[in-house]
């Protein structure tokens, strides 16, 4: 019979290597050591997770207005966060003017959203990105600071909370990247004087702790300036943070520059491009693409470092939370405050790192393994 010559249909794989049981055998219990490790990890989770869940969710207090409302439950007192929420977001920004901050944030979201949509053509994205980098800060500054178009003036000393954290981080990122690129180019320059200056600058800022830099910029700077000359405290903190991170950025970008083969520069020269043109059109686009993870890591570090302005008395998210935990009416809720602050910082940093991984994958034009 014809059928008898056909190969026997494949047998199903043994039950022990497919399905959840097979997966567990392969991934959890492949060897005695792994069995022990799995058991240990499972035990740790078994002990820790119920506690955590009880504290954060099941035994927590969500409604109420005073600390007395939290007495009944053994878990977290999220009322503390709810009562102070506005303060954590805006700091001392006058309540009547907070709509301005909201509008600025809305503008940012509307402006940035197309950048994340794949169907938007690239040239549009570039234009949008550039205008976000150049025009948006001015618009946001006018909105925050006021004093123009009939908006009441709000002193920078009243900016606070997450708003201030985002302002410092945003300005820091926008300024540190170009400065870092220039420094990296300077460090790779063939002119000895420029190279020495850049190396000294970079090594100096990388070698000192940020808090001494901030201390200097916040209370000592006028000593180095002519009598009577001074500028805004926030601006000085911004300059301190920017210079500090620019030095780190420079090292990241240098890594990218070193990875570009010399042939690229020679080819650019052969085409008659000058130094700046060959850098801007040939070398930097390739180099920066290579070091996107490093750049984003520097951004993340910068975002986390904004919390150090606490030490010079600016009321960023961190300081606002810390301050609220010392409020006599709300003593004893440090954990809730820190957990909340940690969650906010974590959300921003984690999304940045995820976005960079995504970008890295999409920009990867080489061979995939």
């Amino acid at each position, binding site marked *: 019979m014809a059928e008898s010559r056909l190969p026997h249909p494949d047998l199903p794989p043994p039950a022990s290597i497919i399905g959840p049981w097979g997966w567990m055998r392969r*991934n*959890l219990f*492949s060897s005695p050591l*792994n069995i022990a*490790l*799995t058991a240990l*990890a*499972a035990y740790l*989770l078994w002990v820790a997770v119920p506690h955590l869940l009880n504290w954060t969710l099941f035994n927590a207090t969500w409604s109420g207005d005073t600390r007395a409302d939290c007495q009944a439950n053994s878990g977290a007192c999220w009322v503390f966060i709810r009562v102070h929420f506005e303060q954590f977001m805006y700091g001392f920004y006058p309540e009547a003017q907070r709509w301005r901050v909201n509008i600025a944030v809305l503008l940012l979201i509307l402006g940035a959203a197309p950048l994340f949509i794949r169907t938007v053509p690239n040239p549009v994205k570039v234009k949008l990105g550039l205008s976000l980098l150049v025009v948006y800060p001015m618009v946001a500054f006018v909105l925050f600071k006021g004093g123009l178009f009939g908006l009441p003036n709000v002193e920078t000393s009243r900016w606070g909370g997450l708003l201030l954290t985002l302002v410092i981080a945003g300005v820091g990122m926008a300024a540190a990247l170009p400065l870092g690129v220039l420094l990296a180019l300077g460090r790779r320059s*063939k*002119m*000895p*004087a*420029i190279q020495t*200056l850049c190396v000294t600058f970079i*090594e*100096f800022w*990388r*070698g*000192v*702790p*940020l*808090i*001494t830099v901030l*201390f*200097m910029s916040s*209370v*000592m700077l*006028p*000593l*180095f*300036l*002519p*009598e009577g000359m001074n500028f805004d405290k926030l601006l000085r903190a911004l300059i301190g943070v920017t210079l500090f991170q620019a030095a780190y950025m420079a090292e990241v970008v240098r890594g990218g520059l070193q990875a570009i083969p010399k042939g690229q520069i020679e080819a650019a020269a052969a085409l008659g491009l000058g130094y700046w043109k060959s850098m801007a059109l040939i070398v930097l686009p390739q180099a920066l693409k290579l070091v996107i993870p490093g750049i984003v890591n520097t951004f*993340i570090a910068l975002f*986390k*470092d*904004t*919390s*150090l302005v*606490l*030490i010079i008395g600016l009321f960023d998210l*961190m300081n606002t939370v*810390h301050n609220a*935990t010392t409020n006599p009416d709300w003593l004893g809720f*440090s*954990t809730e405050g*820190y957990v909340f*602050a*940690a969650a906010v*910082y*974590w959300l921003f*940093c*984690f999304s940045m*790192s995820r976005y960079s991984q995504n970008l890295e994958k999409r920009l990867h034009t080489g061979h995939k393994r």
Partner: protein
Amino acid sequence: MTELSSAPVKPPFWNNPQVRAIIFQAVALLATVAFGLYLFENTQDNLRRLGIASGFGFLSSPAGFDIIQTLIPYSAASSYGQVFWVALLNTLLVSALGIIFATLLGFIIGVARLSKNWLIAKLALAYIETFRNVPLLLQIFFWYFAVLRAAPAPRQSLSLGDTFFLNIRGLYLPAPQFQPGFGWVLATLGVVIVIVVVLTRWARRRQMATGQPFPILSTALALLIGLPLITFWLAGSPLHWQVPELRGFNFQGGLVIIPEMASLLLALSIYTAAFIAEIVRAGIQAVSHGQTEASFSLGLNSGMTLRLIILPQALRVIIPPMTNQYLNLTKNSSLAAAIGYPDLVSSFAGTTLNQTGQAIECIAITMAVYLTISLLISFVMNWYNRRVALVER
């Protein structure tokens, strides 16, 4: 009629790249020097106008305040110069311990991240993503104000066999007290170290020549522990332990790890370990899988493969970014000021600066110290890096 010249027009000198480079550099240098001078002049003027004393004479005047943790003899009668050394040692202590703990923890987590065990790998991932995305200062506050504050009062201390005590004032450990004969033990230890070094060299040479391995690790350990122990016993056990005991307000005697240092150390180690873990993972992944296969085919077991094949290659990738993490940890230890650990920034650039009013001098010294430390660490690491670097033909 215009006459066409056949010779190319000589470009004007300002288009000559060499001339341009010189002019450009001269301008940059001049601008930097001028800016520096400008700041210097302003500072001089300001100091003179305000009548603020300057100079480093203050370093020899008595400090007049006490410090909670001093590794070298110090009292309120000591000088500001002594404050500097105390503070510097405190910074170095917490940085060195932090580097050790962070490296150990980081290696464990990094290897766990690559584990074939799904649960372990995910736990390691969760650890990394949690701790590296939260500001260090927040973590320090968390450990200090939220966790260590939950420790009991001195009278309700948790104790382990009435020898170790944990309370809100710190972790109290017995302190070793060396009796006169202890020098012999140290001397033996020194001799043994020399023997081990010689033995290692001989073993390596023999292996190179004959291919026969020598169990150097176990021999060395036996020597290192055994011989000093014998001397210790012969010298009549010249070591006593001073156990802390509760007297008055606090435990007296013994060693104490103050909570300020404990929380700083915890936060620094846990935070930096998350970065080190990622570096270790990347380093191990950078070694191609073919190396492992080749090693297995040569008959090496998985432990030897890791130790002899993978790690030496991975270390080349790991060391440069690791250096940066060590530097960061050292600089981050300056956040001590936020919780009252007496480090350089807190005791010297803080208290001393304030008691003397010598802001510029104190900050300059502090920055110089950090710069020196960071240059030293990068120097040592560069040297090591060059040693392990791939030697190409």
